């Protein structure tokens, strides 16, 4: 379990993290989204014990991470900025990792050869960025981590490899109860894999919920009435957004889907249709009124 409590981090007077708290339960996949500069990488580097927070507390499995090799043995961090020693092949890196990480599994390493299909004798620094990312996953998974922290993990991977990587991550979660924290600026990517999502903006977590809660509480409703939509009904609904096209009104409405359907039906609409929202639509309508630049996370 990852627990971040009231963390503040400043760089030259600029508050990169502003009193952040978040919690990632064991065995869950937490997606951290936000535009560039929101503070995602900064909080991740604090969680990994690379940066030290100015104040606040970060614990993994109830222990401080900073300078704690027992905990770090169980964490794998795949950074957006990959680094491998020059002259090192994949096999060389694996040998080094096997001596650093006590739970290293050569069996997994051999199995992963089939997934990644990269010649282990190749120098890592000479591989493309996408292939280097695959190597990072390959090596990371072989350490048998309890916690995986992934910063923009599938950037640069082709669609097939993206699917493979997500599949590996999720099977690790399913089989070993691995806790995963994923940072991304791409909501669509996270929708399929995360069970919890937190959104960051200007150094703050402005919203964090389970995906089910988030999606189950907000709906797109299309309806048409013979005359105008009754004012009484409008007053009863928690409408986040409304638009009209001819006689059809499309609304984003918060609340239980069945209750909304029952309420609207009682006013005898000509048409009533309730549709699920995508994660990005949820974020747009939940937070749209706050003035955040969501175009950056809805690519």
């Amino acid at each position: 379990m990852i627990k971040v409590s009231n963390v503040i981090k400043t760089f030259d007077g600029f508050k990169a993290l502003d009193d952040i708290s978040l919690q990632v339960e064991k065995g869950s996949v937490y997606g951290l989204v936000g535009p560039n500069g929101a503070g995602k990488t900064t909080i991740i580097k604090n969680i990994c014990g690379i940066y030290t927070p100015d104040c606040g507390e970060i614990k993994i499995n109830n222990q401080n991470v900073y300078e704690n090799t027992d905990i770090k043995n169980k964490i794998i961090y795949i950074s957006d900025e990959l680094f491998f020693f020059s002259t090192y092949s994949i096999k060389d890196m694996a040998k080094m990792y096997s001596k650093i990480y006590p739970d290293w599994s050569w069996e997994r390493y051999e199995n992963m050869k089939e997934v990644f299909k990269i010649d282990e004798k190749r120098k890592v620094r000479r591989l493309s960025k996408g292939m280097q990312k695959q190597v990072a996953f390959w090596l990371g998974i072989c350490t048998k981590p309890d916690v995986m922290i992934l910063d923009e993990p599938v950037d640069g991977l082709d669609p097939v490899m993206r699917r493979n990587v997500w599949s590996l991550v999720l099977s690790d979660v399913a089989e070993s109860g691995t806790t995963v924290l994923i940072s991304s600026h791409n909501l669509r990517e996270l929708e399929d894999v995360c069970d919890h999502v937190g959104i960051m903006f200007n150094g703050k977590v402005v919203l964090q919920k389970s995906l089910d809660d988030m999606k189950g509480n907000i709906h797109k409703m299309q309806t048409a009435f013979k005359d105008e939509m009754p004012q009484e009904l409008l007053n009863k609904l928690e409408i986040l957004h409304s638009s009209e096209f001819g006689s059809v009104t499309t609304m984003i409405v918060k609340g239980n889907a069945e209750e909304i359907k029952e309420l609207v039906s009682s006013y005898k609409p000509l048409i009533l249709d309730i549709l699920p929202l995508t994660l990005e639509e949820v974020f747009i309508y939940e937070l749209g009124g706050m003035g955040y630049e969501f175009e950056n996370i809805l690519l």
Partner: protein
Amino acid sequence: MSLKTSYFNLPLFKSNLRRFWWIGAGVLLAYLTVALLFLFDEDTSEGFAVMNAVVVGVAGILPAILFSYLNNSGSVTCLHALPVKRKAHFLTNLATVYALILVPAIISYAIGFFYCVLEMPIGIGNLADYFVMLIICATIATSAGTLGSMITGNTIAAIFFAILFFAFPFYAEGVLKGFLSTNVFGIWDVEYYSLDNMSILKANPFMIGWFIVSIIGLIVSWFLYKNRKLETNGDIISFDFLKPVFIAAVSVFAGLIGYFYLNVFFDDSIFLMLPFGILGAVVSYMLSKKAFTIKGIWKPILIYIIFVGAVWGTISFDLTGFERRVPDIADIESIDMVDTDSFINRYHYYTIEGKKYYYDMSIEDYRYYDEEDFKNITAFHKQRIEDRKSGFEKIHIVYNLKNGKTLRRIYSASLIEDREYLEPIYKTEQKLKINHGWLVKEYPVTEIVISDDRLKNDSKNFEILVGDSKKAKLLLDALKKDVSEASYEDIVSYRNSLTQVQISYQRDLIDENGNVFIDESKERTTYDNFGIPKSYVRTTALLTEWGLFDAIYKPNEISCVELEFDYRQEETVRFKNPDEIKEIYDFVSEAKLIQTKEHGYDFNVRLIFLNAQGKRILDFSGSRQTNIPVPRLLSAEINKYKFKYGQNIPKGAIAETYEIY
């Protein structure tokens, strides 16, 4: 967790060696080259000194390379995400530096040991001394390099800081002493500690002191690493608390460099520290902020201006009382008072196999203990402070006080104008001993040479052979008597000298504990060189009898004098007028015979004397000097040349002065 894992990480160590093995190989190659010298050269010390230089260079730069991962966001993130503690990172890198230096060194020294077994000239004791010195040099350089790497997030800056930290003590001492000697009246400005200590192959107290400082430097480096914020990669200064120190240090030293530079063009003033210092403050401020920003820049500039003003006030008004301090006679235990030449003779030492050896002169032999002498010397001291005049002669005064402290001052004086104060001091037994070391004891004289460059070719090296004991004894007896009766004029000047004599004699070399160096194969000859004035009647009579003055070219034997500048033959000026030739001849004779004190190299002149057949018979080269007036006709030609080539003529200069030798 095991101790081994906690303090040292083998995989990272192996990784370091794997990536940087070629540096170790380069060091080994350099060492083996030195090792080969053992085979062919008996004196291997120079080779070991080269080895130390290699060590210093490599050990200074290696930390910057090994810790360069701290300066890149990607590498620092990946390496510090590993389950490796900071102390393991730090110590593993440090171990790598030593491994890459010491493994090649051990191989080389093993070869050296093998030579010892084969009874080659190098001794095992020397080998051990050299190795200790190598460790010391390596540690000093490693400490400088590591400290440099810790305070910055930029690899270039890390190398720069490594060099700076390594050279800082020498640089700082040099620059500050230069500044103080220019601005503080009477400041003691002796030769300062230099990098030469590195070439001494046996650890001396100075180097051991530096070794201890370097260990402290490594400990400080560790604390810096421990507390370093890893997000500072790319910053010139990685610690906020060091930024003001950085700005202050850059400002002051840029100011001092600027001071010395601008001194060439403007009248001396402490405020010459301002332009470059302010520039330094601006640049260092922007570097520390990582931006071309001027917001808030007024603060370091203002602080620096206040600092310079404070320095100016302190020195101008002698707020410390340094310049006016003259000890009471009752507080003085003894005084050493020597001029430049004597100072050099008395403190000069030789380094033989890493140890310092001095000639067997005892400072007590030349020290003033008499109260009358105290009065004369303090009177001179007070007169210097009152008049603040300068002269050509540098006088060093060292008061050894009864409270165990020492007061050191240097003043310049004119031997002629300040005669009233100097004569009672110069006409003393101590001064006689200083000027003529061969008189102190019955040293074995090995050679007496008339060192007069005007001698005709076939009379060069006009030697009075020591083997010819009768002649030598006659000359020495005559000199002893003449010297002991010398007038003040003869003591302070050789301008009226007829010729010059050099007496070579053997003195024992003693170490700092008074032990005599007994290796007879080593040179222990020294010499005294002095002019023979007309007043040395006994000596002059002997030399005349032996035909010396017939063996010296006379002005009437010279038909032309050629004056060349900077060895440019196309600029040659010729003098053929007998009066002009005589004037130049007299100048050269006089200048040659004067004991010159300082050497300043502005540009070179050369005087070539030709005989009637156009053959070169005498050749004198010279450079600009401060203490000998040049004949008007030479000065005019020199100034013409300097004007033509845009050379700077000092403001208000009445006559240029040159040394001819």
